[in-house]
């Protein structure tokens, strides 16, 4: 039995994950918590948020994120790839700046109209 704090939302439910029982999760208050508890033991993932360069905008940095959670082990590698990205204003929130960064279909997208 592993004890975890759910990080899906700010509520911070205290989860218990039973590895010997098909990763059964208790202590969650929503289905997303059950999914998190299972994945956190099995293969932890995170949504990565960062910035990339942008020219011609109000500010020289544009916020971006992965449009789904990616394996924790890939975060620093994706950060390195983001260093090479440079955008030009205008961009719209939702615009894809890098495709398939995890080999599993996650894209890096813009999160602000700039």
């Amino acid at each position, binding site marked *: 039995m592993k004890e975890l704090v759910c990080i899906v*939302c700010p509520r911070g439910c205290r989860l218990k994950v039973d590895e010997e029982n098909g990763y059964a999760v208790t202590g969650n208050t929503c289905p997303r918590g059950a999914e998190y508890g299972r994945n956190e033991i099995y293969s932890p993932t995170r949504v990565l948020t960062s910035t990339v360069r942008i020219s011609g905008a109000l500010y020289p940095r544009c916020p971006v994120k992965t449009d789904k959670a990616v394996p924790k082990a890939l975060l620093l590698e994706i950060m390195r790839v983001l260093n090479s990205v440079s955008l030009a204003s205008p961009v719209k929130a939702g615009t894809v700046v890098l495709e398939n960064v995890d080999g599993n279909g996650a894209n890096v997208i813009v999160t602000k109209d700039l």
Partner: protein
Amino acid sequence: MYDLIIIGGGPAGLAAANSAWENGLRKILIVERDREPGGILNQCIHNGFGLHRFKEELTGPEYAGRFISMVGNTGVEIMTDTMVLEINKEHEVHVISAAEGYRVLKAKSIVLAMGCRERTRGAIAIPGDRPAGVFTAGSAQRYLNMEGYMVGKRVIILGSGDIGLIMARRMTLEGARVLACVEVMPYSGGLMRNIVQCLQDWNIPLYLSHTITDIRAENGRVSHVTVMRVDESRNPVPGTEMEFDCDTVLLSVGLIPENELTRSAGIEMDPRTNGAVVYENMETSAPGIFACGNVVHVHDLVDYVSAESERAGAAAAKYVLDNPCDDPFISVRAGSDIGYTVPMKIRVNRVDKAADVFFRVRRVFRSSVIEVSANGETLFTFKRDHMAPGEMEHILLPRKVLDAAAGKDITVSAREAE
């Protein structure tokens, strides 16, 4: 003459504007001192916003973007690059901007939505040199996420508030080495989820009951920091010194509601929240002047800021469109282990089904009971599995409970479950 002038174009101001519009006001102005609306959300590029509000996890700019586009679909006017210098109880708003100079604008109602600002090194009096390299976590966040400057390479974070935790991860992702997060209290001031994903994910140690006792400099820049354990009365314990080689100290030691305008207008303040005393509809002691968001009390979740601000916007609309009336009120008192409550006053006959009451507990509770009482008699109880000072609590007080108080002040208190 405006129906409503809103001071601040962050999440509170935007939500209040949208709600006032939906409730029938048409001449609405938001005054924002920055170059664009969105407030602090613009620099909070991490995700975790909007789960209550939009049932999905958004980044700060995305959350702000939703409200900016909602307001964009109304006739609400947004004046950016404009600073409010003064307001008064006659609903006059003194503004200044490079483009338009100094002007006095008039309104039938005002919503105060100025947010809060960070406590600085001066406010907590850390001994030592006064070199470059000491930043509040929020200003480092703005430098990094918006202006594109990395503020340091070897970082110590003082305080475990959410912004400090978020910056620990952010600096790490950008290649800095975050050596430690140091918290004077025996518990973290931030959300549990941020301890997990910002510190534990990156193996950053959290030293609870520790503080920085010295900052030393070489060539005008931070070079060493001394950290010591503190006892129960928060005094450093001799012999527990730890030395860190670092070039940067980030401070995440609390937020202070930014209420210079509120105070100078002579509006009644609450010494516990450092915000205005408010009624159930977020009206201050000055009729027709409302307040919402972090300028009233510091929230953990922007979702609750939006909800509170929508109530303020709706109440401003009601004030302008209906005749304001002077109803009797009861006070809400903070009982044992409760730091403060918002609202502090409830006009019971203005409450429809239930009144929202927000508060913070003073210490960590496991299985516990929140008790609402009047005259020593328990009126209602709420159960909780876990409460902590870093996590704002919320109860919905049914109208019938308020009626049962029969005009007597009510007290909210917390205790362990039996």
